């Protein structure tokens, strides 16, 4: 327990001190939320743009922290031999991963609080009920696990520089193709269908539906649950510390 707490505290400290992570996880999501809410660049299915954007930006927060920031930092830890050295200590890999997950959840909590606060100031009025809140929390946790699995899979297989490019490329692709800031109804037919079977698209749809009181689609939840199990398993099976 001492090792887990110490490692988690160290991970959180390093995350919060990393300027590029703060840009990726806080400033870009908040900037996109404010800009697209206030400037009529996109047409959204909801009456108020912020009603569409707030849940989308919450999805983006998960994507940026659990996938991109985690993948890049872990890729460089691998490249700099940090993971190789840790492999020679009694710290179990599961404790190390647990510390990373806890630090991700803390970062996401900070992100969600900041996004909700700014969104409410911009006029967001989400549908709230115990069921919708539970669904939001469940979706965020499943998506975090799925994105972390994908991020760790990339970090554990690719060279740090290649991983950096891949994670950023994926970020841009998923940002545009998951219904976070651009409604999937605006995308060409196949892209709209695909968005439900990728974790960020499924998360966006689930958050949109639960915060606007619309009924859920089972495919989103099933897809997200499958990713949440399969991606971490794939990462664990394929991860290399060298």
């Amino acid at each position, binding site marked *: 327990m*001492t*090792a887990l*707490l*110490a*490692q988690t505290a*160290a991970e959180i400290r*390093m995350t919060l*001190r*990393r300027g590029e992570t703060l840009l990726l996880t806080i400033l870009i999501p908040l900037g996109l939320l404010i800009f697209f809410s206030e400037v009529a660049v996109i047409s959204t299915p909801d009456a108020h743009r912020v009603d569409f954007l707030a849940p989308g930006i919450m999805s983006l927060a998960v994507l940026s922290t659990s996938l991109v920031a985690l993948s890049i930092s872990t890729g460089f*830890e691998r490249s*700099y*031999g*940090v993971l*190789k*050295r840790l*492999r*020679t*200590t*009694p*710290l*179990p890999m599961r404790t190390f991963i647990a510390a990373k997950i806890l630090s991700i959840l803390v970062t996401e909590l900070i992100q969600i609080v900041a996004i909700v606060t700014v969104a409410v100031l911009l006029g967001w009025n989400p549908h709230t009920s115990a069921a919708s809140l539970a669904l939001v929390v469940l979706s965020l946790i499943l998506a975090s696990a799925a994105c972390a699995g994908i991020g760790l899979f990339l970090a554990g297989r690719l060279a740090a520089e290649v991983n950096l490019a891949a994670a950023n490329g994926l970020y841009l692709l998923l940002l545009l193709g998951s219904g976070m800031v651009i409604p999937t109804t605006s995308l060409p037919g196949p892209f709209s269908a695909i968005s439900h079977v990728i974790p960020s698209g499924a998360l966006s749809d689930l958050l949109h539906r639960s915060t606007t009181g619309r009924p859920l689609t089972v495919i989103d939840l099933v897809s997200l649950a499958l990713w949440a199990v399969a991606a971490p398993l794939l990462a664990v099976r394929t991860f290399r*510390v*060298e």
Partner: protein
Amino acid sequence: MDFGNTTAVHDVSFELTFGEVLTILGPNGAGKTTSLTTLLGFRRPTAGLVELHGLNPVAQPAQVNALTGAMLQDGGVWAPMTPEQVISLTASYYRHPRSGADLIDRLALGSVAATPWRRLSGGEKQRTLLALALLGQPRVLILDEPTSGVDPEGRDVIRALIQEEKALGRAIVLTTHELDEAERVSDQVCVIARGRTIMSGSLSDLTHSTEVEICTDRDLSSLGDPPRGGRCEGRNLFGPAHDADFLAAATAWLAQQQVNVQSISSRHSLESVYRHALEGESR
């Protein structure tokens, strides 16, 4: 140990007792680091048995790591962390860690204890990694080129610490390219080349010689016949070891020829033994 179709290490075998230092020597690419990382359980051997503390390092890494301290060539630390912070964090992984302050002091890291890892020199990084390897009070210490990139003062600190740890009863396995360092700290030596052991044994056995070697300041080939039992090779005169009569005759003969003696040795240097072994291997 195979990597695809390439056999990196084959037929490397050694045993070590507590309180001894085993040095693995060999040219670049000989398989030294692969041997150490296999010993630490980084990869499953294609054939053969690897045990540390009687445990399987691949199947029981946590138990093996709790008893072993390792300093790997390309092991690293988070760039923003200082030696003080990473030592404190790493101490939390162990049940009974050694005092971090004591290690910082012993490894002369006090002046850089609060400096981020990315700003440390090569030698300071090596000393920090050694401190991390020693934190868990390991029974076995594995050091892959511990003095590589370290300045002479830093080397002295590290070598003195290795001797101290040996005196505390730790079994130490190290690799180095510094043959004089190996000669100073080793009890056992294992020379490997192309993934195979080509020579191993105790340092005293390997460097033992049946001849005495007298090094001089002149070429001896033009001086005529040396005393009975002796032979000249360049500036060196060889003869039977532990033979006081030969030694007396040889030194008298050299003095008569007005040749100055520079050194007298009845054992081979590790360097000459090592080079001879590698030459034999390449033939």
